[in-house]
């Protein structure tokens, strides 16, 4: 299986993603410069965190028009696995691959801390190895992670099981207190209807090795590989 990590000007979690994927899956990974328009040979594309284009205008707004994004959209429409983390999630929203938009955090602060995520859907390719309602400890680091969507979209997300992660406490209880940024319905991550595109604000690549004191994020990369192996066989 071959992973690709897209590099926009201003991406800063690309090397972390590259390393985490390699360490968790032992599969080949390549960087993909944002000017590339051909994704042939890749099985999973990761849009990493960072501040693409300096977050000018709106987070993710300018990166969405990088040449690589048309290829990512085609890749996703063909069923390819796409994971957007933090700024990558924001780019997926701007590109229309996922519904909704990001607002400034409701406390107006840049939040950099561990959060607990309740896995609300372990049927996606990205969470396939998680137990039902498993709780993962994964750090967030963002200023614009306050997810918003209209009422109808929210209803659709809920009905189709597209809410994959909610901010919770360590036991999996979701309350207003466990919501760090004001996100509607405590949403930390969503997928598209088909389940092959996932966006999340927390950073699994920053907690994918015991060496770093927390390996909870590793299960996502292992899930992607397991799903791919099931598909190929």
């Amino acid at each position, binding site marked *: 299986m071959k992973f690709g990590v897209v590099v926009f000007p201003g991406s800063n979690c690309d090397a972390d993603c590259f390393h985490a994927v390699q360490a968790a899956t032992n599969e080949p990974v390549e960087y993909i410069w944002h000017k590339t328009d051909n994704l042939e040979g890749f099985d999973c594309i990761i849009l990493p965190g960072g501040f693409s284009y300096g977050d000018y205008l*709106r987070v993710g*707004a300018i990166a969405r028009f990088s040449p690589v994004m048309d290829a990512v959209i085609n890749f996703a429409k063909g069923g390819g696995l796409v994971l957007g983390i933090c700024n990558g999630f924001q780019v997926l*929203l701007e590109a229309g691959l996922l519904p909704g*938009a990001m*607002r400034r955090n409701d*406390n*107006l602060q840049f939040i950099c801390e561990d959060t607990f995520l309740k896995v609300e859907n372990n049927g996606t390719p990205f969470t396939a190895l998680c137990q039902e309602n498993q709780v993962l400890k994964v750090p967030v680091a963002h200023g614009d992670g306050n997810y*918003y*969507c209209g009422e109808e979209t929210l209803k659709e997300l809920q009905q189709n099981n597209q809410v994959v992660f909610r901010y919770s406490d360590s036991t999996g209880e979701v309350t207003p207190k466990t919501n760090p940024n004001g996100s509607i319905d405590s949403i930390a991550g969503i997928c598209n209807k088909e389940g092959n595109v996932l966006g999340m604000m927390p950073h699994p690549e920053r907690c994918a090795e015991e060496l770093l004191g927390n390996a909870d994020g590793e299960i996502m990369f292992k899930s992607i590989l397991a799903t791919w192996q099931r598909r190929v066989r």
Partner: protein
Amino acid sequence: MYQAKIYITLRKSVLDPQGSAVTKSLHAMGYDNVNDVRVGRYLVVDVDTTDKEAAEKQVQDMCNKLLANPVIEDYTFELAEV
């Protein structure tokens, strides 16, 4: 040439955390009669054309595709020949 002055703000239905913070600060300063503040962006875009209608359509397109995010933002603009 035409110049568009574009104003982008969060939609009324979307909570504006920056606007709320500014409102609170103004209240603390004694401006009790401030009811609401919306923080937005202001862009000035020069379009090289003599056709006003074409310029208007272009600016609208730009706003819908890139300059504003219709999920959370509203925009208005004024167009003037310069």
